[in-house]
């Protein structure tokens, strides 16, 4: 998000707050859930959750990873059944038994994971849910994707676009209550902004939205009130006003708060000794039509950020560096040696690990947390023999602790909350002690507390001499972790910023591929940009 929006949003938000606070006192809630309980054996997903949403309200649902947000959304929309609790819709008690029931009652969800059936094309998916195609198309265009072909098979569509399609599908049936579970988490800034606008308009037109996000900027720009969950229990409902973030974090994290107070990073500190040979040297890399000509170096001990709008070739760049797809031209060097990766195993042997943006690509969902983290240990032929269980356990456990993974439901990764699944994908490579980590949006869906921990972790890795390539769709992360930022547009590197200059407006401008001439308003920054080496 650009700074412009942020500032404007605060005003707008205040204004709405004053306009509506009277209304809030008098109107009846559109949706009112109380005492919702859901347990899975010994795991208590929801202990005592309540949520009350007024007409025309954008209501944030907040909580740490595993607090029970997604579970509550699934219960409200009939995807799973609660053990106990009352749900009133427009004042009437309703037993929502299935998503179809919920839909009839005007409740439409966008769940945390993409919900189009991967093997069908978009049109058939729409048929399945009886969605009006024209309205859907209009919304897709409105949400910033002009060229969707509804004959495309869902499997081939990038994650960010899939999320937008899910949203458009929900919007197309004009729901009274829209439930968005981390809708913006996988979206690059330009798409995220469109979503926020649409959500605001929903609110303004008297419909309600339940909005789940771990990004405070979005919450304060968008929401009227917030319900905070902790360990499956509603611990508070607050009006969103300037400065309320602190309180929310406090409520969210409870006892965990101290851990997060440590702020993570001053980029300058990380100015580590660079030897002459870069860890990773990429020259004129091309992949099909998406990645046209990318060259950059990644030094030992460096965290380099990659910033790009949706579909500018960043997916292909990461996949090619990870050995997952073959480049059609250019060279990759590791420690000065040219390499050709025919399989991810080759990249891994060269010490390069890849955390893909879509966690479902990285996880074996029916297997345990432990097996998922330990998977790379057994991959090579020479490691097919007996596993030393004690050694494996200690490596896995320290990675789990490091990332604060909630292991109550560890028997199957699919039972973990979205954020905890995400942590498993990172923990795997921490445990494997990879020399170079390619992280594609690694903090997607991770709560504020753990995010700090991950920033810190990445910095520590860099301090140990490891190198990290870090794509993020959340621009504010850049300044927290990176030493340098590479901006990609149209499959080319259009700019390289030292982190000091990489504020959000500057990044946004570069990400839109605006030519250097436009940068006059950034003054002296312009000529620093042209020098290739980042650190002062």
């Amino acid at each position, binding site marked *: 998000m650009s700074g412009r929006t942020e500032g404007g949003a605060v005003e707008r938000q205040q204004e709405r707050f004053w306009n509506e606070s009277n209304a809030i006192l008098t109107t009846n809630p559109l949706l009112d859930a109380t005492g919702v309980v859901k347990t899975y054996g010994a795991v208590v997903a929801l202990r005592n959750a309540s949520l009350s949403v007024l007409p025309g309200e954008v209501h944030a649902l907040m909580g740490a990873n595993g607090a029970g947000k997604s579970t509550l959304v699934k219960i409200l929309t009939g995807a799973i059944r609660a053990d106990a609790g009352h749900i009133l819709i427009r004042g009437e008690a309703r037993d929502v038994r299935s998503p179809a029931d919920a839909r009839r009652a005007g409740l439409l969800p966008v769940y945390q994971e993409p919900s189009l059936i991967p093997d069908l094309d978009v049109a058939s998916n729409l048929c399945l849910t009886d969605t009006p195609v024209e309205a859907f198309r209009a919304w897709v265009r409105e949400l910033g994707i002009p060229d969707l072909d509804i004959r495309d098979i869902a499997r081939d569509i990038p994650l960010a676009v899939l999320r937008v399609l899910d949203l458009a599908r929900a919007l197309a049936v004009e729901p009274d209550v829209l439930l968005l579970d981390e809708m913006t988490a996988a979206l690059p800034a330009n798409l995220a902004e469109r979503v926020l606008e649409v959500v605001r308009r929903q609110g303004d037109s008297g419909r309600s939205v339940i909005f789940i996000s771990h990004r405070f900027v979005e919450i304060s720009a968008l929401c009227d009130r917030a319900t905070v969950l902790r360990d499956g229990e509603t611990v508070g409902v607050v009006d969103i006003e300037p400065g309320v973030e602190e309180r929310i974090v406090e409520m969210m994290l409870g006892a965990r708060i101290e851990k997060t107070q440590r702020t993570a990073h001053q980029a300058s500190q990380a100015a580590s000794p660079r030897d002459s040979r870069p860890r990773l040297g990429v020259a004129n890399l091309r992949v099909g039509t998406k990645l046209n000509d990318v060259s950059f170096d990644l030094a030992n001990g460096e965290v380099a950020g990659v910033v790009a709008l949706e579909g500018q070739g960043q997916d292909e760049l990461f996949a090619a560096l990870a050995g997952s797809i073959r480049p059609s031209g250019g060279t990759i060097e590791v420690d000065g040696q040219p390499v050709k990766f025919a399989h991810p195993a080759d990249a891994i042997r060269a010490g390069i690990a890849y955390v893909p943006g879509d966690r479902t690509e990285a996880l074996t969902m029916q297997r345990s947390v432990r097996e998922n983290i330990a998977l790379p240990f057994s991959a090579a032929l020479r490691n*097919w023999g007996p596993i030393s269980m004690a050694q494996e356990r200690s490596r896995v456990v320290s990675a789990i602790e490091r990332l604060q993974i909630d292991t109550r439901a560890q028997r199957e990764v699919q039972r973990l909350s979205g954020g905890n699944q995400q942590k498993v994908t990172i923990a795997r490579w921490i445990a494997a002690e990879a020399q170079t980590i390619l992280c594609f949006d690694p903090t997607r869906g991770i709560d504020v507390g753990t995010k700090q921990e991950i920033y810190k972790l990445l910095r520590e890795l860099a301090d140990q001499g490891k190198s990290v390539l870090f794509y993020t769709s959340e621009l504010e992360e850049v300044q927290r972790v990176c030493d340098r930022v590479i901006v990609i547009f149209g499959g080319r590197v259009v700019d390289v910023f030292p982190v000091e200059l990489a504020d959000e407006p500057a990044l946004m401008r570069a990400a839109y591929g605006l030519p250097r001439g436009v940068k006059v308003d950034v003054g002296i920054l312009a000529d620093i940009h042209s020098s290739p080496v980042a650190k002062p």
Partner: protein
Amino acid sequence: MSTTAIQPVPFGRRLKRFMADRPLIPLIILLVILVVVLQILRPGIVNERWLANTIKFAIPLAILAGCQTMTMLTGGIDLSVGTVATMSAFIMATQVVNHDPAVAILIALVPAVLIGLVNGIGVGVFRVHPLIMTLGTSLIGTGCLQVYQRTVIASGAKIPPFLAWLGTGLTYGVPNALLLFVPIAVLIVLTLNRTGFGRLLYAVGDNEGAARLSGVRYWQVITALYVISSVLAGITGLLYIGLIKAPSLSLAEPLVLPSVAAAVIGGTSIFGGRGGYTGTIIGALILTVLTTLLTILQMPEGARRILFGLIVLFVTAAYLRIIEDR
């Protein structure tokens, strides 16, 4: 905040949850029920001799079901196990006329390795669907065996005494076949749970793409898997001929579909990624007891098969409902 009393979770759901966490328990219960029914229908039938017999017949089925379990974990299936078992049994029985038994056994296992290799390369490298691939090699194998039969028709066949001893013999009332089966079973269970290879079978079957990103080379895993499966099938053939004592060109064929059924009943998913061998062993026992049960009912063969099929369907559906938890 609401003050709704938190109701206790109903007993039914708690029970279901309990079962879901321990999928072996409902299987064992079913096995016990079948044995009790058998005892009621024919009092006195369940004795030491019956037990030994049941185990003897369950073992070949259980080993073949082990092949299915391992291949099914990767989302595959091995329909060639019947042909491979038959081949190795038949070849061994005819070769042993002219060769030392050890040599005959080695010769007999060669086609098993070859078929496994072809299966593995077909599935792992050329990405032929396992069903088609193993069905194909199974047909080819049967054809080859028929050709081979012509060439040895004059020399006859015999069964080495120690295989008969292993297949049918008892020591203090305990079937000797356990001498072969227990190590194999332990090996399979340990491989699945405690080795890198076992982990990879699950990983590849659950999400091949994720395994790939972790550096797993699919073709290696799959080739090794189908070779192992085939060798196990070959060994089963040798054991089975010791039990049946009559070499024929369709010796082990009737075991193929039951071996798939045993693995499925035992809780291994045909879609890959979940299951294990202990369940399969109990599945094989259940099927064997069920066969006895239907035999003593003295129904016509056709009706018996229909009933067998229906019961397998019903049990599998019920079992999946029990262990699946929503």
